[in-house]
């Protein structure tokens, strides 16, 4: 049995999905924005709802509630714009949340072998034990792949 390793205090953003709260390392968060129009187009990747336009960038919207709560969100109050890593590349991803977010400092206990891949660790806050999410495992995506016909017009949107 592996012993959890205590790490130094770091910043986390607490987000609310329905009745539950989860945490994401603050370094992975770009901003919290009001919901905007989602542009949908055909695709085959589960959990992706479409894209939003944010600061001239096209940002995919990923509903993680189904995986975390077992049901999709019926309402959403904000999009938490997070940085998702794909190998050595990273891009923004919008996560719908149902309530206000909170920035806290806490010490994280690393995830154990029995934890799901999307659990990066655990923090304790106000008597509540909260899952710290590993967005790279929770959200779809793969290593950077070539896009067919990388056109000369191409302007990548990377954070």
């Amino acid at each position, binding site marked *: 049995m592996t012993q959890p390793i205590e790490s130094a205090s770091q910043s986390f953003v607490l987000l609310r999905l329905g009745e539950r709260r989860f945490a994401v390392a603050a370094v992975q968060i770009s901003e919290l924005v009001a919901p905007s129009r989602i542009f949908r187009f055909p*695709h085959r*990747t589960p959990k992706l709802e479409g894209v939003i*336009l944010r600061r001239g960038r*096209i940002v995919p919207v990923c509903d993680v509630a189904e995986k975390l709560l077992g049901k999709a969100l019926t309402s959403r109050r904000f999009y938490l714009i997070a940085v*998702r890593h794909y190998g050595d590349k990273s891009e923004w991803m919008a996560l719908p949340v149902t309530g206000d977010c909170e920035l806290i400092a806490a010490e994280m206990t690393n995830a154990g072998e029995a934890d799901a891949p999307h659990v990066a660790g655990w923090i304790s806050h106000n008597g509540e034990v909260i899952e710290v999410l590993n967005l790279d495992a929770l959200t779809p995506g793969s290593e950077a792949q070539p*896009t067919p016909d990388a056109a000369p017009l191409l*302007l*990548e949107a990377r954070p």
Partner: protein
Amino acid sequence: MRVAAPPAKPHGAARTEQIILFRISGHPFAVSSASVQEVRSVDSLAGAATEIDQPTLRKVRHVVRRGDKALYVVSGAAHFGLPASSASLVFVLRKTRTALLVDGIDKMATMTRLQALPLAYCHEERAWYRGLTALDQNVIPVVNPEGFLTADEFALLDASIVPETIPGELTGDGMELPE
């Protein structure tokens, strides 16, 4: 001492691309006009098309002859997994033996920026689209003309037809687009 500013780098004219905005089952798409050889009415295929019954490839129901090549007619709705719609036009695509059934054309436009499909999209859509473009406060997927049929699917289709049985060549009636 005042140091002269370095000469400004010449700004080349922004590269743009003409695109055709079209619809399939109510969804907007774009395709580079340079990759569309011809736009035809679906009615013009009558008499020139032969039916194909390939159970594993329902998106292709017809083939037409174009010169010495077989041109496979792909249902855009079936390809993208959209509800069946009544296609009225067919795009004959360049550099691929594919023709695409679409519901209609919205307009021509100029694309100044093509953004790569976000890496979160990691399934077939990476082959379907060249990327996304923002146009008039909309985000439109720009289709990849070579993404409608894979090499394996072409091989499957080629094996299922007898070229001599394809009736008359597809000629006339279409609107040719300049390359």
